[in-house]
């Protein structure tokens, strides 16, 4: 279960050290820096790019990241590959 019903983003504020990286890297302003701790302010806008998880030094954020591309997912379903990766330029 994520913070939003629409995606897989999970955040544990107890682990947050307030470095602010998540609110810097998120391209959809899902996180905001409040009182020296990160807050999930717009979880529905998460596109699961994984930037916040990758740049969180304490592992407070988890997200099942991947490409939101139907063509890539169909191709992978047909070829039997597990991880959807885009093959566009």
């Amino acid at each position: 279960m994520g913070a939003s019903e629409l995606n897989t983003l999970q955040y544990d504020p107890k682990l947050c050290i307030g470095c602010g990286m998540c609110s810097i890297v998120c391209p959809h302003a899902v996180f905001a820096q409040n009182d020296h701790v990160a807050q999930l302010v717009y979880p529905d806008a998460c596109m699961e790019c994984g930037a916040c998880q990758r740049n969180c030094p304490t592992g407070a954020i988890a997200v099942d990241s991947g490409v939101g591309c139907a063509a890539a997912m169909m191709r992978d379903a047909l070829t039997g590959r597990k991880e959807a990766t885009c093959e566009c330029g």
Partner: protein
Amino acid sequence: MSEPDGRPAHPDIQPTTSTMALADCWDHVLARWGVDRTEHRVEPGLYALGSPAADSPVFVTANYTLSFDALRSALAGIDGYIMVLDTQGINVWCAAGKGTFGTDEVVHRVEATALHDVVDHRVLILPQLGAPGVAAHEVKSRSGFKVEYGPVRAADLPAYLENRQATPDMRRVRFTLRDRLVLIPVELVHILLPLLIATVVAFFLGGPLASAGVVAAVLAGVVLFPVLLPWLPTRDFSGQGFILGGVAALPFAIAAFLRHPDAAWWLRAGRALALLLPLPPVTAFLALNFTGSTTFTSRSGVRREMFAYIPVMAWTFGIGIGLTIVLAIVRVFGGLS
């Protein structure tokens, strides 16, 4: 490139400028039209923009010409170094998603270019959209360089450099009309051959009206859909595609209905349905495929949409094609005009 010990004694720093030559502009046109899709590459390594000194900023980018050129043209009048990663000719955001614009490659490129000896500071400015592939804290511990994420768009770099702060607006990705328009040519190129075949098949099965309908449904999905995206009702792409495809197919269905007023009503209705059923799912499918081009769709969302809509697309398309074939048989063997 051969780097036996990973750290050449004298790395080559190539000069570059902020001006776009005619050849660069032509390269951009070809890239946008999908010509040699993955071959718009810049040689990975270190580039000197203007006359950089040991305290000049270091900007990191992908070895895709559109990425490299967006960066250097945004930095007009600024002296600095550009460190080009080997992302196999893929842009920053997509390469970050694949991991080729990633922690390992940043650390490797710092060593390969002997960056420690070139600059006396220890800061790298990365594009924000490189963050899905790069763990800033790992780059710091492995290379000694602190990663600073600059703005999403290279054009905002001069403003960012004033106080090394990005405004909330600079941190947000957009999807403007212009952003969507530049994607259309490459989508057109991809669909051209399937469209040609479908048009010919439709002509023999359903005549010129069906052929024209196919072209309209495909153009609705590839051209009209990206243009109208923010203004279409409902949130999911497939639903929007169905609506748009229905609008595109309707005139052809009405024309098919009115074309032979003397024919039996069920035959006229059948001919209209043979257009109204299979064409909208074509547009919807193309709209669904556009999810990969947008800047905001999540994998969860697209997966949910695929499960919900692909069966509907398959059924309406299948029934529509079945009806078309039946009508073609009736026309040939039944002698009904």
